[in-house]
């Protein structure tokens, strides 16, 4: 009986340990898989058939996957992702941080209890729905306001993505502001500063690392977003910095072309290479954000 019990204990412990390590291992598995599948593009598949040059993938300014011979240039797609992301942040960061500041520093407690979950509900709206609303409402508005040809522009994508990243920014920024010890505010108010001076000169600087982490995580969310940009940015692989132009992002390219490509073809491997680039960028973004969050945590626990 005791033997059986010890066996059960060991088996249970072993099972949950496996689950823990398997969940963590998934990250490495995904990375390994993306790298392995990308390699199919760059390595020679048959004697006499050289692989696609890495330099060309990184510097070529055209993405022409079905041309003969095909051209797989990362530049226009990466630029598309950057333009849309930058535009979304220009809109979402001021709004998100201001809303977080209102919730943490100005609003009465009962209002915060209502508003914070409501804003988080915004995050529950699926991106395909945001994309559809962008298509049916934002695009016509952009078209008539900026006299663009179709309304399907980088700016339209930025607006849609701003809406999607705001809940992330508000939630994390509000947490960062709320973590600033009350004694900071009390000290500032006691010295005669008013509430706004206290917020702006004391609380916001103290929470800066956490606010930065909020912005970075918002950027990460935008960069990886697929359906909304696929539906509203027009998907032309242009080299442009003008938000009124149509652009095509890395994510939209993967989603749109994966269904049309033959498994094992160069095009197929090129889409995995795009996935690998995207994955590495989001890993770096998350790493950066967690280091800022860690710094914020240390700062707050050091000074009380």
């Amino acid at each position: 009986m005791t033997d059986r019990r010890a066996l059960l204990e060991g088996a249970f412990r072993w099972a949950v340990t496996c689950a823990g390590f398997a969940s963590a291992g998934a990250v490495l598995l995904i990375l390994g898989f993306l790298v392995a599948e990308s390699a199919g593009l760059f390595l020679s598949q048959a004697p006499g058939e050289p692989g696609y040059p890495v330099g060309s993938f990184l510097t070529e300014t055209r993405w022409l996957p079905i041309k003969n011979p095909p051209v797989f240039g990362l530049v226009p797609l990466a630029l598309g992702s950057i333009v849309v992301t930058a535009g979304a942040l220009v809109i979402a960061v001021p709004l998100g941080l201001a809303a977080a500041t209102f919730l943490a520093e100005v609003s009465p407690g009962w209002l915060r209890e209502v508003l914070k979950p409501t804003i988080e509900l915004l995050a529950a709206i699926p991106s395909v729905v945001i994309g559809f609303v962008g298509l049916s409402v934002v695009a016509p508005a952009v078209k008539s306001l900026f006299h663009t040809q179709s309304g399907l522009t980088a700016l339209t994508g930025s607006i849609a993505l701003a809406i999607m990243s705001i809940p992330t920014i508000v939630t994390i920024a509000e947490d960062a502001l709320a973590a600033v010890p009350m004694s900071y505010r009390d000290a500032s108010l006691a010295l005669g500063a008013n509430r706004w001076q206290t917020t702006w000169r004391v609380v916001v600087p103290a929470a800066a690392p956490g606010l930065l982490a909020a912005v970075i995580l918002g950027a990460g969310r935008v960069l990886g977003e697929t359906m909304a940009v696929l539906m509203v940015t027009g998907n032309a692989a242009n080299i442009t910095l003008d938000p009124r132009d149509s652009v095509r992002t890395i994510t939209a390219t993967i989603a749109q072309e994966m269904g049309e490509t033959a498994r094992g073809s160069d095009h197929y491997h090129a889409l995995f290479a795009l996935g690998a680039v995207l994955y590495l960028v989001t890993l770096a973004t998350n790493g950066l954000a967690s280091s800022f969050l860690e710094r914020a945590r240390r700062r707050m626990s050091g000074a009380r």
Partner: protein
Amino acid sequence: MTEIVAHTLLVLATVVVLVPLFFVLVLLFVRGAPLLGISFFTEPPRDMNKAGGIMPAAVGTLLLMAGTAAISLPVGVAAAIYLREYAPDNRATRLVRLAILNLAGVPSVVHGLFGLGIFVILLRFGSSLLASWCTLALLVLPTVITASEEALRAVPDSLREASEGLGATKRQTILRVVLPAALPGILTGAILAMGRAAGETAPILITGVAFFCPELPHGVFDQFMALSYHLYVVATQVPHVPPELPYATAAALIQIVLATSAVAVVARAHLRRRRLA
């Protein structure tokens, strides 16, 4: 004076942030209203998605939610039990946590690529419900783990000590005392994960969803329809769709997602009350 101006701006920003939520909800239900009757939910689409209802897509979405939860919940809860109850505080554990945190940041389209490579091709599931289940399960796994671990952490140590003091083993304590106490939090995480599974489009687009398939899937190796992808299709891929159709489809999807969140809130409150009684 500056204080009044500054606070007014903060209030304005908060209002601007909230507007899209209500705008989207009102827009979808008002514009979709003409179609949103019982038959819209019970009839299959006809004429290459240009007419008819959304029955197979709605059922497909519910199937996605159930399957995703059924796969991710056991693994996620077990991983959370390891992290909270067994893991030593060392470098390896910190790496495991870091990896799970990073898994949460992987873009959904990358999950789709991975699912295509592993589940569809390597494991020969084909473009299927099963492949999409597995892909989405991995996608929501960090959500399930984080929520479950938080729920386990909220169980007071005195409960564990009392159980072990009565002679129960660690496994018995976890299964009979800690898990039941943590159930509300775990369920909330599971329901959040299901809401996410309902809304995701890019991963299923690559791993198994069907463009037009009026019949329900007969097994897990069949393709299926889903509301999220169906909305993408009727909004962008099919010409001459009646204008209300995409609005009504989006409204149906939002209903499922919001109802899921509401269930999470109610279930949580109910279980918490029962535990207190």
